[in-house]
C-alpha cells in the first residue's frame, strides 16, 4: 500500500515493528527486506508519490516536484548548490544510474582507519548481489552510448587517459535522455519501480506527505516517531505518531542528522564530517549540433585522476554531463546578451564534470525551519588545488574530443578558451566555493559509521552508538567520501542493516 496522506486527510497514529524514515536508495531497500522478512513496516516519506505518468520532461514542472527546494538548496554561504531528491524513491528518481560497487580500497580504508573490521568484501558480497539483481544492473551496451559520451571517450583515448563504459540500472531504455527529470517510461530501475513496490507487496505501509520531525527513544519501551502530514510547500495538514520497536532513519545526509539533532540522539558527532563530492561542469561547444541531452546522459567514466589503491583519500573523476535549457542556463555565468551568446549554441553544447573525492569536511545543523537546515562547507586548500587541476583536464579532454570552444564558468568572468589556448590560464584563477557554480548530488558522512563511539555516530550495522533500536541507512553513514557514485553502496549497506535487524540484532522488544 502506498498512500498519499494529503488525500486521505486527518491524522496518522499507528504501530509497527519497524518505522522507516525515507524511501530512497537506503529506506526503500530496508523497508522491502524487512517486510519480506515478516516485519510489520511503516515507511514515512515527506515528499509526494509521483509516478511516470507525472513525469512531463519539463524542467519547470519536474525540478520543483523531484528536488528539495526546487533544486535551489544551497550551503549557508550560497557557494554550493545541493541537489537532493524529495519524493517517493528519493534521489534514485532523478539520478543518472551509474551503478558501482564500493571500491575495494575504500572498504579497506574504512576497515583500517575507522575500526570497522566487519566491512569486508565477503561480508558485503551477498548484499551487493541482491541489490544488483533487484535493480537489474547490467553493462551499458555500445549502441546505448550517446553522441556526447562517444565524443568524450574518443578525446580521452587520444590523450591516453583511462576510462570505461559503466554499468547502469535501466531496463528497456528508450534513450530519451530525460533521466534527470524522472523516467517517463519506467525504464530507470529506481526505487520507485523496484524496492518501493516490493516493500508494498510484502505488506509495508508506505505513506507519502509524511514528514518525521522527532524520534523518541527512551531507555526502555517502544520508539516513537513524531511528525506531520505536509503538502509540497511544507505546510502542515495533520499530525503523525508511529510507535515501533525499531526505527530505520534513511532521510539522506542532510535530513537524517537534522532529525537526530532535533531528537537529541546520536551524540556530538552527528552532523559533522559532511562530504559533498563537489562538482563543476566545464562546457564545450562543438562546430555542429550534437544534442547532448538525447540518449543516456552518462555512460562513459574517466578514472585517470583517481587511484584509490595508491591513495584512498583523494583524487577526482570526470563524467560527461548534459542538461536541458534551464539547467544549462544556470551553469552559464552572466546575464543578458552575453549569456545568450552561449545559450544560442545550446544544441552544440556538451559538458564534462569534474567530481572531487573530497577530503574537506562541512556540517549540517538544524535551522530555524524544518524546511531549511543549515549546511556549511568550504573546500580546503588541497581540494581547491585538485578542483583546479580537474578543470584543466576537463578542458583538455573537451578539446581532444573536438570542441572548438571551452568555457570554464568562473562567476566573475567566464574563462573562454579557443582551441589551442594555453590551459595554464585556468590555474591562474581562484577556485573555491563562490567563484564557480559548484554543485553536489552526493552529500554524505554526516552520521558516519565507525567502531569508536567518540568519533562516529553508528556502528558497523548502522545502529546508533548508545541507543539501541535506532538505525541509520543512507549515505550519511559513509565514514568518508566514497570517491564513486553512491547508489549501490547505499543500497547494499541498507540491505545489510535490514538483514541484521531480521536476525534479531538489537531489535527492541518493548
Amino acid at each position, binding site marked *: 500500500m502506498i498512500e498519499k496522506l494529503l488525500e486521505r486527510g486527518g491524522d496518522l497514529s499507528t504501530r509497527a515493528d519497524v518505522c522507516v524514515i525515507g524511501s530512497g536508495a537506503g529506506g526503500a531497500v530496508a523497508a522491502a527486506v524487512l517486510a519480506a522478512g515478516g516485519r510489520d513496516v511503516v515507511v514515512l516519506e515527506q515528499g509526494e508519490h509521483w509516478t511516470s505518468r507525472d513525469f*512531463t*520532461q*519539463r524542467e519547470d514542472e519536474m525540478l520543483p516536484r523531484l528536488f528539495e527546494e526546487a533544486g535551489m538548496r544551497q550551503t549557508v554561504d*550560497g557557494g554550493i548548490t545541493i541537489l537532493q531528491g524529495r519524493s517517493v524513491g528519493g534521489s534514485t528518481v532523478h539520478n543518472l544510474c551509474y551503478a558501482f560497487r564500493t571500491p575495494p580500497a575504500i572498504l579497506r580504508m574504512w576497515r583500517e582507519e575507522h575500526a570497522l573490521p566487519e566491512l569486508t568484501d565477503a561480508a558485503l558480497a551477498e548484499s551487493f548481489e541482491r541489490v544488483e539483481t533487484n535493480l537489474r544492473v547490467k553493462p551499458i551496451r555500445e549502441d546505448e552510448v550517446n553522441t556526447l559520451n562517444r565524443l568524450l571517450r574518443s578525446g580521452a583515448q587520444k590523450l591516453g587517459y583511462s576510462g570505461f563504459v559503466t554499468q547502469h540500472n535501466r531496463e528497456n531504455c528508450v534513450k530519451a535522455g530525460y533521466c534527470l527529470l524522472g523516467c517517463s517510461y519506467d525504464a530507470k530501475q529506481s526505487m520507485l519501480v523496484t524496492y518501493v513496490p516490493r516493500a508494498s507487496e510484502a505488506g509495508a505501509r508506505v505513506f507519502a506527505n509524511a514528514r518525521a520531525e522527532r524520534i523518541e527513544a527512551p531507555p526502555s519501551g517502544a520508539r516513537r516517531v513524531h511528525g506531520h502530514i505536509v503538502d509540497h510547500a511544507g505546510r502542515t495538514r495533520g499530525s503523525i505518531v508511529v510507535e515501533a520497536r525499531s526505527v530505520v532513519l534513511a532521510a539522506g545526509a542532510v535530513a537524517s542528522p537534522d532529525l537526530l539533532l532535533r531528537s537529541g540522539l546520536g551524540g556530538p558527532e552527528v552532523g559533522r564530517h559532511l562530504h559533498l563530492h563537489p562538482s563543476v561542469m566545464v562546457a564545450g561547444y562543438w562546430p555542429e549540433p550534437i544534442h547532448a541531452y538525447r540518449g543516456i546522459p552518462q555512460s562513459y567514466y574517466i578514472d585517470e585522476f583517481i587511484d584509490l589503491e595508491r591513495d584512498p583519500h583523494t583524487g577526482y573523476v570526470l563524467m560527461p554531463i548534459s542538461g536541458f535549457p534551464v539547467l544549462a542556463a*544556470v551553469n552559464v555565468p552572466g*546575464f543578458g546578451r552575453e549569456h545568450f551568446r552561449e545559450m544560442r549554441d*545550446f*544544441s552544440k553544447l556538451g559538458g564534462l564534470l569534474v567530481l572531487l573525492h573530497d577530503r574537506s569536511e562541512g556540517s549540517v545543523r538544524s535551522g530555524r525551519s524544518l524546511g*531549511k537546515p543549515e549546511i556549511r562547507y568550504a573546500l580546503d586548500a588541497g581540494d581547491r588545488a585538485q578542483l583546479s587541476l580537474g578543470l584543466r583536464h576537463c578542458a583538455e579532454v573537451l578539446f581532444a574530443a573536438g570542441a572548438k570552444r571551452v568555457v570554464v564558468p568562473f*562567476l566573475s568572468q567566464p574563462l573562454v578558451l579557443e582551441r589551442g589556448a594555453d590551459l595554464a590560464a585556468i590555474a591562474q584563477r581562484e577556485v573555491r566555493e563562490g567563484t564557480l557554480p559548484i554543485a553536489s548530488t552526493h552529500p554524505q558522512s554526516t552520521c558516519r559509521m565507525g567502531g569508536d563511539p567518540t568519533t562516529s555516530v553508528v556502528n558497523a550495522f548502522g545502529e546508533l552508538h548508545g541507543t539501541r533500536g535506532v538505525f541509520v541507512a543512507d549515505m550519511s553513514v559513509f565514514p568518508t567520501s566514497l570517491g564513486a557514485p553512491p547508489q549501490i553502496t547505499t543500497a547494499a549497506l541498507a540491505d545489510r542493516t535490514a538483514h541484521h535487524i531480521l536476525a534479531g540484532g538489537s531489535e527492541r522488544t518493548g
Partner: protein
Amino acid sequence: MYRRQNRMSNHRSAASLRALFAPATTRRGFLRLAGTTAAFTALSQVRVMPAAAAGVANAGASGRFFDDAETEILTQLMQRITDTGLPDAPRVRDTRAVATVDAVCLGLDPAVSGVLPLALRLFEWGPLLFDLRFARFSELPDAEQDASLRSWMTSRLALRRMAFLGVRNLCFMGWYSQPEVWPLIGYQGPLLRRAAAATTPT
C-alpha cells in the same frame, strides 16, 4: 499550533516591511529603507525571514505568490536578465515566464521562498541604495538597468552576489521553460506527446 501562532505574530511585521518597500516611498521612507538595509543584511545571514514567510503564507490564499508590484519588478528584471538582442525574440510579457516563476515559488516551503519578495524590492531600489542614483530600477533605460544588475553580480558583498544569482536563476527557470524560447537555442523539446500538448501556448 506554535507554527500558526508564529505566522500570526509575524503578520504585522510583514505588512510593515511591505509598506516600507512600496514603490511610492517618500524621502523619509527612503531613509528608513537605507537604515534597515544593514538589518536586512544581518537577517539574511539567518537565511530565514519569518516576517516575509508570513506574507508568503498569505500569498497562497490569493493563488499568486508575488503581488502586482513585485510581479512588475520581476518582469523587468527578467527582461534584462534574459535579453537575447534578437529583434524577433518574444518579450517576457508575452510569455508565461513570470507566471511560471510565480507558480514555482508558490510551491516552495515559506522558509525557502520567504525572502524573495523582499529581494525583488531591493533590486528595485538597488540604484538608490547601492549606486547612489536617484531612480528606481524600473525607471532606468535598458543600458542602465544592465549596469545596475552588473553591480549586483560583481558586488564585493557576497550577499548581493548571492541574491543576484538566486534571482537570475529563477528568471532562467521561467524563461527557458517556455516552448516559444526553445527554437532560439535549438532545443527540440520534450519527446512525450502529452508534454507537447501541455506546453502548446494558448
